[in-house]
């Protein structure tokens, strides 16, 4: 492999951006594909599938056997609100392989006793996100019900192009939230990316069941990232 190609791939990986190294196993020739690069034809479709699944493997394109080595950064989940739902969501999300972090400035909620083995910040989201910024491989779920706490991280998540942005609250609550986000300068299309009401509609009836519906929605968003990106461009 060409060292310059390796350097470029490593720089992308260090910046938590997904790349695929495609190697022709006959000739050894390799190419680097960033997720932001245009994807067309059979190779493009194979790259989109690989970016979505995160799985490496061989594909045959135009009579050539290409090995696609997929490098996707570990996905994170940032939960705004150290509430009941989060207590169920944190361990489930860890099982699925997400790096979980809970943020809630209300010190009565954000206690290690309520969240064992979980990265927890009893600080304002503004403070925490300044040091650990959101990115395209981060999911954000805002579940406090309190605009003072939820609004800033929701706006930050949309601007950072988080692969999932969900907000708890009724349709009425969400309508008011949309007005505030419009006033903050976000476009209708950006705001439409917020999943609200949060979670898949499975009739969830308890905090733990809501957590299941949210986690399933997050997985769905993660595994369709690259295909949705293609639809947006189409």
């Amino acid at each position: 492999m060409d060292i310059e190609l390796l350097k470029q791939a490593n720089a992308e990986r260090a910046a938590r951006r997904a790349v695929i190294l495609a190697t022709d196993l006959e000739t050894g020739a390799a190419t680097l594909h960033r997720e932001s690069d245009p994807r067309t034809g059979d190779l493009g479709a194979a790259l989109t599938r690989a970016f979505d699944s995160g799985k490496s493997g061989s594909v045959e394109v135009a009579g050539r056997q290409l090995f696609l080595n997929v490098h996707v950064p570990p996905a994170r989940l940032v939960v705004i609100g150290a509430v009941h739902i989060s207590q169920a969501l944190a361990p489930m999300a860890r099982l699925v392989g997400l790096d979980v972090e809970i943020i809630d400035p209300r010190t009565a909620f954000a206690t290690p006793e309520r969240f064992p083995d979980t990265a927890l910040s009893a600080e304002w989201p503004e403070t925490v996100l300044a040091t650990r910024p959101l990115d395209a491989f981060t999911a954000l779920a805002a579940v406090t019900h309190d605009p003072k706490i939820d609004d800033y991280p929701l706006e930050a998540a949309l601007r950072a192009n988080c692969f999932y942005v969900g907000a708890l609250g009724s349709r009425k609550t969400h309508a008011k939230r949309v007005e505030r986000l419009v006033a903050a300068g976000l476009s209708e299309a950006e705001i439409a990316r917020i999943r609200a009401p949060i979670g898949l509609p499975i009739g969830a009836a308890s905090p733990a069941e809501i957590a299941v519906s949210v986690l399933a929605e997050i997985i769905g968003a993660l595994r369709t990232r690259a295909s949705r990106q293609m639809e947006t461009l189409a």
Partner: protein
Amino acid sequence: MTSNLLGQGTDPLALAERWVGEGRKVALATVVETWGSAPRPVGSHLVIDSEGNFEGSVSGGCVEGAVVGEAIDVLESRAPKMLEFGVADETAWQVGLSCGGRIKVYVEPVA
């Protein structure tokens, strides 16, 4: 969702870059195909230098020794090579992929 720890010295691709920067001759081995109960997934890397130093894993320890030997040959010939290990192959049985799986490993120079 793997937990490759970039910058902590354990990431084979980051290490390959660093070793080349230090002037070492470096080969990269990659698992490109697996059948059965292969211990390491497709895409796993082993990075090897011409002195036989290596980091990473392509089989959880079963065939690393053989891959390192082949990698040193690849560094001399400068030509990539495809290796196959599995229980069906007598040599591979000797090097010990006894877990019952079969793997294909692509070894190439990095330069």
